[in-house]
């Protein structure tokens, strides 16, 4: 008798706590539905219509997708985005790793000040980052070409050559992205037990060997996260390029999110832009699934 009362109250208590948990989760759930699930569903719906942002929408079946697969501008945007991602993610990763390694190196001097310098770009918005690098790499007025000219070489066409323009984007992106990644690495390095490193030191391992053989492998979970988030971040790069060169010269460096923005908002082809969004979502999903396969860390 007493036992059954007790279990009933335990079950009631569980239910009561479930309700309380639901109350705590309501705000996030509502916002999640409104600004994630809703738009995703709506986007899927729009992608099968000729919606232009006003008036009625008419279903056009798969025609947006068929058109998209034949759209050379879309392929260029996608191709450029992939090139940008494939180059900028490893560059950003190793740059941040090198900076973090130096910032924990016992023998390096002036680390506190250097850390502030490396961190500074974190404060700078993507738009201002674009401005800073546009100013430096201006074709006819920038300091870089001035210096190139000064050593007797011919100035480079940073704005007119699509590949050089993309190179500037990659440099600016790495400059802006290092700080955040560095914070992640430094936090992870701090959590590595010093006894591991002391043991290696007793065995005669130098600082470089210690970092490469012990610290770096132990950073694997952080590395996984940095690469995954870096990839997603690069795939959706938009603001910095807006200020840096607007996707130029011409439309040669229009990346995929800018392409979606242009078709959806400047040309007001919401249906068509939504189809492009859906394809980008599928690509991101595939990237996430592939990368999670390599993940040895457990988010829990």
């Amino acid at each position, binding site marked *: 008798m007493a036992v059954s009362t007790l279990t009933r109250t335990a079950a009631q208590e569980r239910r009561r706590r*479930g309700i*309380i*948990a639901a109350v*705590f*989760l309501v*705000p996030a*759930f509502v*916002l*999640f539905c*409104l600004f994630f699930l*809703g*738009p*995703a569903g*709506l*986007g899927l719906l*729009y992608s099968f219509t000729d919606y232009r*942002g006003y008036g009625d929408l008419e279903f056009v079946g798969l025609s947006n997708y068929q058109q998209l697969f034949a759209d050379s501008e879309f392929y260029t945007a996608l191709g450029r985005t992939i090139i940008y991602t494939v180059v900028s993610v490893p560059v950003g990763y190793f740059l941040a790793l090198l900076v973090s390694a*130096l910032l924990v*190196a016992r*023998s*390096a*001097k*002036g680390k506190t*000040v250097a*850390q502030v310098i*490396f961190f*500074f770009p974190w*404060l*700078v*918005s993507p*738009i201002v980052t674009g*401005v*800073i690098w546009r*100013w430096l790499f201006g074709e006819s*007025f920038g300091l870089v070409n*001035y210096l190139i000219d000064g050593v007797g070489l011919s100035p480079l066409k940073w704005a007119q050559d699509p590949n050089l323009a993309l190179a500037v984007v990659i440099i600016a992106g790495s400059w802006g992205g*290092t700080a955040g990644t560095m*914070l*992640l690495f430094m936090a*992870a390095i*701090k*959590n590595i037990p010093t006894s591991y490193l002391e043991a290696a030191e007793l065995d005669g391992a*130098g*600082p470089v060997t210690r970092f490469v053989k012990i610290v770096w492998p132990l950073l694997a979970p952080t590395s996984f*996260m940095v690469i995954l*988030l870096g990839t*997603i*971040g690069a795939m959706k790069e*938009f603001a910095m390029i*807006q200020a840096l060169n607007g996707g130029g010269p011409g439309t040669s460096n229009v990346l995929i*999110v800018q392409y*979606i923005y242009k078709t*959806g*908002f400047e040309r007001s082809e*919401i249906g068509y832009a*939504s189809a492009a*969004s859906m394809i980008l*979502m599928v690509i*991101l999903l595939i990237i996430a699934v592939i990368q999670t396969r390599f993940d040895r860390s457990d*988010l829990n």
Partner: protein
Amino acid sequence: MRSMPRAIGATTLLWVLALAFLFPVLWFLLSSFKPGSELFTWPLQLFPRDWTLSGYRTAWARFDFAQYFLNTFLVAVITTILTVFVSACTGFALAKYRAWWIQGFFLCILATTMLPTEVIMPSTFAVILGLGMYNTLAGIIVPSIVTATGIFMLRQYFRTVPDELLEAARIDGAGEFRIFFTLMLPIAKPIIAVLAIFSFQWRWNDYIWPLLVLNDQEKYTLQLALRSIVGAENIDWSVLLSASVISLLPMIALFLIFRRQIMNADINSGLKD
């Protein structure tokens, strides 16, 4: 003996990199103090020949910076408060209550990092329009409240709080909401500080939502105002450089005040947003 060359090597490499990181900002900052004529006169010089604030004065006079500051500040502060509160509620529930649907919701939140909303902006815009938030500051605040990073940070933090502490409070007769407000929120202060700083920075520097949502110039945030200068047919560099520097000042102040919290933030759980 062996460590001398090593120290020189590490220090040199560190400082070569640091100067490479510093130089673009230095050039940008020093250029903003040059008069317009000097910006494009060769030979270029690192330091201005005549130091001047004329770029700043023109920028301040030509654009309604006070308004942009106010707008950006309002958006950043309100969003940050809401983000912290919602992340704390959600993180607490995800960490301390167990049910299959709670786990399921956690996975949904994580999925939002993999599939960011920028990607589906045409339809998100339609939702904002449908909610009557077009061309209002609320239209940039409300969609930005939920961030996977914030929820994840708080969840990880609350998981480190022992369950016994909750049980003890329950035995003392405290209700779940009282436990949350009087026990859990104060415990989470350090991580809340970190999230608040991060959130403020995200919102201060945000570009894509203001671009989509705001139409009237008087509602512009700083980033949009800067974009309108840099997007002009003929860029007025003198104004652009000064305006960009002005937009940075609050972030620099934030950094100077909270340097310790930012640099020591244990964000191994920290995603970027």
